[in-house]
């Protein structure tokens, strides 16, 4: 019975001492996983000035809204080779997240929802033969006009869902890692 008491006291002593955490201040947390910047570059097939759509949110989940910029207009009927890049500009040096998404391709997919500004075709594949969307082909509509484009990065979507490999977000599920909206013009 004495042993039991000693054991109990020892347990208390151990837990008491093991708890003494040092209050070392290691500086602010740099949110390394956060996406601050989405850039979609549309390079005209056969050459020309690329159109760059960019959304930057330099305070991450902070109160400031993202700053959206569109470098120019699309040309009606023209084909563009597209690439999407994701950055964390809060990290020092600036962190390129695109590679991570490529590596975990089976767990990510990028969707392009728009108001009829043309057609988007995926030109990349993950290990299971499903698209990721980091590179794509865009053909502008032949009818000039203003439109809207939403680029969404989904984490853990159901990539074999109905029409999901064709870019339909409705049955994809998963959770949204980034979602940016651009006003674009086709002239």
């Amino acid at each position, binding site marked *: 019975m004495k042993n039991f008491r000693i054991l109990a006291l020892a347990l208390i002593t151990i837990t008491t001492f093991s708890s003494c955490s040092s209050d070392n201040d290691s500086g602010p947390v740099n949110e390394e996983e956060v996406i601050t910047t989405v850039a979609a570059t549309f390079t005209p097939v056969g050459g020309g000035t690329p159109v760059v759509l960019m959304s930057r949110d330099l305070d991450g989940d902070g109160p*400031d809204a993202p700053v959206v910029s569109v470098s120019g207009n699309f040309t009606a009927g023209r084909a563009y080779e597209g690439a999407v890049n994701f950055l964390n500009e809060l990290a020092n040096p600036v962190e390129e997240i695109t590679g991570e998404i490529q590596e975990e391709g089976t767990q990510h997919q990028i969707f392009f929802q728009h108001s009829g500004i043309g057609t988007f075709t995926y030109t990349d594949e993950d290990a299971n033969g499903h698209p990721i969307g980091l590179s794509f082909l865009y053909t502008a509509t032949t009818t000039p006009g203003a439109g809207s484009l939403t680029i969404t990065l989904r984490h853990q979507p159901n990539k074999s869902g109905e029409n999901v490999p064709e870019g339909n977000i409705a049955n994809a599920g998963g959770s949204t890692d980034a*979602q940016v909206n651009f006003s674009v013009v086709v002239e």
Partner: protein
Amino acid sequence: MRIYILLLALLAGNGCAYSQHIISGNVAAPQNKPLDGAHIHIEKLHGVSAPDGHYELDNVPSGHQRVVISYIGYKTMDTLVDVIADVVLDAVLKPESTQLEEVVLSENNAVPKNTVHEQRLKTETIEKYSNASLGDALKEIAGVYSLKTGSTIVKPVINGLHSNRVPIISNNVRLEDQQWGTEHAPNLDINTAGKVAVIKGASALQYGGDAIGGLVLVEPVSVLKDTLFGRTIMTADYNGRGGTLSSALHQGNDKGWAWNANGTFKYMGDRQTPDYVLSNTGNRETNFAGDVKYIGNTYDASVSYSFYNATIGIAKETHIGNVADLVRAINNGQPDVVEPFTYTIGAPRQEVLHHLAKANFNKQLDNDSSLSLQYAFQLNNRKEYDLRRGDFANIPALDLTLATHSVNADWKQEKDNTTLKAGLSGSAQFNDASPDTGIRPLIPTYDKYDAGVYGIASHSFSETLSGEAGLRYDFSHMSATKYYQKTRWNSLGYNGVFDRFITADYGSQWLTNPEFTYHNISASLGIRKKFSADIDLLANAGLAMRNPNPSELFSDGLHHSNGTIELGNLGIKKERALKLSGTLLKTGGAFRFEATPYLNAIHDFIYLSPTAVEYTIRGTFPVYNYRQDNVLMAGLDLHTDWDITKRFRHSFNFAYVHADNTTKDEPLIDMPPLNISNTIRYTTDWQSLFLELRSEAIFRQTRYPNNDFYADVPVNGVLTPTLVNISTPPPGYHLLHFISGMQFSLGKTLASVNFSINNIFNTAYRDYLNRQRLYTDDIGRNFQLQVKLNY
């Protein structure tokens, strides 16, 4: 069974075989406390002891007589006396150990001074929930609801209030970590509880002055007789396809060494709704609790230690990215993706570790007074894992280590008709929010020091009237280390207001050291009036003050489980509550009831309220700010028990609360809806077989504030303002449960087998106070088999 008889004396007389004699004597509890109203009987003769403990039985025939002396709460003395002349038989009754038996209410004492009504769970109820949680079991008490995140994170709601308005006192130690928000359930294994009681209202000043909603008291099994016994409960569940094994051993003693040990192991897989599997909702627990006690003549000393280790899966469906995902989840009505059943627990999940060690010393100072000293240490580590990318997949999104040291000294004196209690308490708490998570912590690193002093006096004015008054003072100081994004600091309006807290500049962030000091006064006043042998009226008024907790002051970030940005407020003040409540109690007869109406006026009630929408690169999010308004709550809890016949018994629970935000003139958010339960139980003598049918009716909450908002959701690529319906409560529902059980003797072992069906009709439902109600149904039918062995 050993009965201690202080004195057994036979007085010589001229014996005559057919003559009649008198048996007389005194009945007392240990330390010569006379027992008033003890029952003494010899066959059909019976008598009752006087207030000084004296009794007398006349006309006792000569011969071998069996004398039985009993008093509620004490071991019955049963002895044989050779009556050849008048006999003096004094008895000292030992307090009854209450484990494994129905609990004896303290109000049954002849002149109760306690003006606060405690509602307790029966041992059978505690054991029934061996595989569930404290929050589930407490729901059997009228007026206690449960606030859930899924099916395993459950915390009690007393009269509409929860979290740090309802402290949980386990083994006389205030449980830390459960006070922050809905996802922090009490870190407690219900299998270690010998007694679970609820005190509604702010009248339990001994435990703190901030119990605005009420208090849950959990005490371990305590054995006051020389014995060794144990218990094992095995539970197997169909829904979740798992079970629990819980085993306990108790070595009791009236003097000398005594110890208890209890271990529990739980293993459950994904739960199921009537229509689909709830992916990632398994859980597992490994718990241990033990204590060693030495009981001397005038003192006892004990050390105890408990360990709680749980891994809890959070339904995958509830992890969302932004408001568009939330709208999708609400409109779909069921999860996007349902995966096959598995025991594997992925992300999101919680891993919680809680150590509690305690040393306690009680000293009987003299016949009337006692002193109790206690030191307790708690260490809580909480890791919350989220669905993360890349190298972060196995790094928790939140990693908090909370260490709490507390000391208490309590003095008690019971003299004549007055009981005095006084005490001091102090605690030091250190929270460490690990920066290695790569996510700004919702709750920062902080140090907190508390000190309190209280005094309570209870007095019996007459046989039927008693009163109680108490006063408490608390001091609290908190110092936190918190980084603020400068943009956030400015948008919250802190610039120029809280500049004194800033200690360093880290480019885009401020390092701050907010410090707060509070002085609180709490008080209680109660009376108890006995109208007849079994009808009592209790009335209480309580003033309580609660300081804002770290989450209310400092929260700053995105909550992935509900897609909201939560923002604390450095300007939040403490809240003050005045609660008036009454209890009408009928304790005897075939029909018993308790009715508890109450009124709770809370000044500067702290709550979360949506205020704006924020745009980030993830999309839009509603912003919830902590705000303060005045609140008025009025409610009624009703419980009845009716022995219809010897075999049939009916129980009824009713609870309704009507709560308003009087500042904004609208209903208060997250109030439990009207709920009614009816239980009918049939018992037989054959193997103690019982059959029970329980109906649970939860009505729709019709009183709620409309916090719906419009957010821009892409529709065909165009951002379209869309209504986000987060306010409307789900429809009411009705569930039917069946429970049955019987007992067998296996040599010296008493075995019980219970079989139950929860949600017999596999009803699909959602509960207003379940945080996952926007995403999924609650769990469906469950078959449970439980085997209990008492040895």
